[in-house]
């Protein structure tokens, strides 16, 4: 009996066992989307004559290629989440009801738009601003689809908030603009104006994302769970204790919805991402801009992206699935 019974603390930690395929999917496409937005903003600024983009053709073509690379890497990561990746083509079918299906459509469409935008720049076609505006719309649609996959699950109360969508947009954009700043600094080091604008934009996006992410953390820390053991089994008694979950070993329910990490690990990840995504990149961005150091800007992006992986892990790990009420005690 003792041998068979895993330590109860295995089941005390909350949902959800974060899948790294999904963490990489959402963070990588976030960079790709933010980078594209940065490129388009730079082209728009140049068109209005506010900023100068040196070697514009090469800058936009190479930038689009990099954005495409991030998006493709994210798409590749998503396949590792699937039990049957060879059937992935089927997942575009239910776009009328499923945000996941909508994301599956929006991502390749956006990739096509980025490819067209970069290709038009590379080949010197006109109408890049028009192509780019279509790309911006698809980019926002993709942000919304990705975030709504989580925000639409109403009983995952930590996710079911507009803040989820806002955070996905702002965090993705901030990391993309940071990358764009580092890219501009290394690709077009002659012109400092573009780098400065991108650094400031990345900084502002990072500060905005800090505000909304902290807002969602505060909201989640005050959440009152709607479901309880009483509603789960329908018995209105204040004291109900589970004595057996029906099996001694694990099951899908205990593996998928419990990460099994100690509270201090969660705390460390939370403060870790709060430091790595926001203040550290901000300082590095400003330092890189004032010292004209591409390396510092690259470091800013790298650290922010690392922090975003932790942020996404925490996003999943913090959510508490009502099904966990049924899996509180082994026997």
């Amino acid at each position: 009996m003792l041998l068979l019974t895993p330590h109860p603390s295995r089941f005390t930690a909350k949902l959800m066992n974060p899948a790294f395929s999904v963490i990489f999917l959402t963070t990588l496409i976030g960079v790709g989307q933010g980078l594209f937005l940065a490129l388009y903003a730079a082209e728009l600024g140049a068109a209005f004559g506010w900023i100068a983009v040196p070697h514009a053709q090469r800058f936009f073509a190479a930038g689009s290629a990099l954005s495409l690379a991030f998006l493709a890497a994210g798409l590749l990561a998503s396949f590792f989440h699937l039990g049957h990746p060879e059937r992935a083509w089927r997942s575009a079918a239910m776009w009328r009801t499923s945000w996941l299906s909508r994301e599956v459509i929006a991502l390749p469409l956006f990739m096509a738009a980025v490819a067209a935008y970069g290709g038009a720049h590379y080949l010197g076609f006109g109408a890049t601003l028009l192509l780019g505006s279509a790309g911006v719309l698809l980019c926002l649609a993709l942000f919304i689809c990705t975030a709504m996959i989580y925000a639409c699950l109403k009983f995952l109360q930590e996710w079911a908030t507009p803040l989820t969508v806002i955070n996905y947009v702002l965090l993705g954009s901030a990391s993309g603009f940071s990358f764009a700043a580092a890219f501009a600094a290394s690709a077009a080091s002659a012109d400092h104006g573009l780098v400065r604008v991108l650094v400031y934009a990345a900084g502002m996006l990072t500060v905005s994302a800090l505000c909304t992410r902290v807002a969602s953390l505060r909201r989640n820390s005050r959440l009152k769970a709607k479901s309880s053991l009483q509603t789960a089994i329908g018995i209105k008694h204040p004291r109900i204790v589970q004595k057996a979950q029906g099996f001694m070993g694990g099951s899908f329910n205990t593996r998928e919805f419990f990460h099994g990490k100690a509270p201090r690990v969660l705390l460390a990840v939370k403060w870790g991402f709060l430091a790595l995504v926001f203040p550290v990149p901000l300082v590095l961005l400003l330092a890189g801009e004032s010292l004209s150091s591409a390396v510092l800007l690259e470091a800013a992006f790298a650290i922010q992206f690392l922090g975003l992986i932790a942020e996404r892990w925490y996003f999943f790990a913090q959510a508490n699935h009502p099904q966990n009420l049924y899996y509180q005690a082994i026997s």
Partner: protein
Amino acid sequence: MTQLALVIDLNVCVGCHACVTSCKEWNTSGEAGFLSDDNPYDRDPTGTFFNRVQTFEVGEFPDTQTVHFPKSCLHCEDPPCVPVCPTGASYKRAEDGIVLVDYDKCIGCKYCAWACPYGVREIDEHQKVMKKCTLCVDRIYDQNLPEAQRKPACVLACPTSARLYGDIHDSESVVSQAIRDSGGYALMPEWGTHPANHYLPRRKNEIRIHKDELERAANPLKIDGLLPKPGVKEPALDDVTSW
């Protein structure tokens, strides 16, 4: 409209797990393929199950009740797992309301399991598709079975008849009557899923007397009554014998 469902009587369930094992037996032997197990006779056994019996203690010692709580897919009338499925592999049948997974379309993304507040969907770790209670859809319509056996395996296995099966949209069905008469309720009503399966609460026991219990079918008096009686004109015993 038909909505097939189970009604589980928590007043009667003794927690014997017969429904769990018979469910596993039936559903691992069907045309849809086996339900994977790993280390079934070893350390950390794990496997795919459609049905589980859990045990809860209600109250404080010594005033406690031990409640055995069988849990399987509730075949919600508004199932949150169905609209989120990107491929349409998860669907709710219009004709009888059973929520099913098309194993040939499922891509194993687990999104439906995230979208189910009850935790009744399990991925098959070897076939990599989502599985769940089918209400024994491969059994309840099988014309080769005697009609009395066209019921889910768990219902047939239950030794205390704690599991009732029928159409909850038919007000005269045994399940509708049980819900009506014994205070049947749905789980987690706060999410608006409208589960089709209902649970009957713990309640004061009452004697239920069936007609065949009042009149014993094998009553010798009744059997005698059926024997042919001699007609009036027939010779009586006195006429044919004399001492």
